[in-house]
């Protein structure tokens, strides 16, 4: 018993597509999460963009631990620097310039609020999945980092 593939390119692509869409459809949970992403919009907040990601800089001879990663976000005069430790399960961060206040860390579908010390430092737990931080920036204002996948 052997199987055949179509000789025609268009038919072959259709064939493979048929197999893969039956065998690898978009999971319902993924569609639900995509729909739910709308609710995470922060129309009141300014965006801090990812300015540095050590993942994209490493040349293979890095001296840091394999699971460590440094990220820098910048926006609206604020720089947020973070170090991900233990493969991303823990993070230490700093706001530059330092400012006291609350930082919301959203990771793995959960939100945790931590407070910064006088030097603008904070620590938090993280987790796999989409990640971002929200920083208070005075009454009615906030800065959010863009989402990245941890």
């Amino acid at each position: 018993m052997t199987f055949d593939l179509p000789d025609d390119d268009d038919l072959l692509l259709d064939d493979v597509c048929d197999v893969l869409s039956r065998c690898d459809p978009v999971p319902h949970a993924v569609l639900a999460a995509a729909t739910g992403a709308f609710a995470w919009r922060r129309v009141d907040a300014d965006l801090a963009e990812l300015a540095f990601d050590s993942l994209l800089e490493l040349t293979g001879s890095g001296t840091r631990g394999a699971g460590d990663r440094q990220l820098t976000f910048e926006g609206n005069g604020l720089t947020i620097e973070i170090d991900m430790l233990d493969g991303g399960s823990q993070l230490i961060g700093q706001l530059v310039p330092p400012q006291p206040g609350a930082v919301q860390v959203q990771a793995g579908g959960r939100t945790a609020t931590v407070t910064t010390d006088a030097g603008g430092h904070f620590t938090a737990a993280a987790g796999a999945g989409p990640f971002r931080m929200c920083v208070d920036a005075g009454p009615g204002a906030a800065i959010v980092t863009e989402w990245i996948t941890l």
Partner: protein
Amino acid sequence: MVERAAEGDARAWSELVQQYTGLVWSVARGYGLDTADASDVVQTSWLRLAENLTTLRDPDRVGAWLATTARRESLRVLRRGQRQIPSGMDLAAQITSEDAQPDVPVLRRERDAAVSHAFQGLPALCRALLRVLMSDPAPSYAEVSEVLDMPVGSIGPRRARCLDRMRTAFESDDERARPIEVVR
């Protein structure tokens, strides 16, 4: 739809999700990400779109924007290199398992597994290209070029080459499978 979603219309957002999640998923899977990583990449792509709805330069090309975002995130996840399993492993397991396709006849399931195996054996670039070409609605070559960062003129020839490799891989798999089939 993008403008309506930017104004807060959740129904317009759902329509975007229905229309483009297949494309975004195909990009992540095309790079060989497992279900967990691909799910994260797709969700991150949509979260990114949500925060960029009002600043998107060209709302008509939202599909390409999403797919490009998914490609960059996929590459990032591949670099991260954790939680990574050999490409195609969980898909192959899924296809051969009866739970995944209870109503599909055994013979069809075997062929599915053979087709899928040949597909997963392709180079990453071929898998990514074919997956994106298969997405529904079909993207234009200009969109494919943007999504995968390859010249428009190279897409047609690469498509043909990748499909040829697919046939070759399928036939050599089939040769190897034959003795087992005879014993049956």
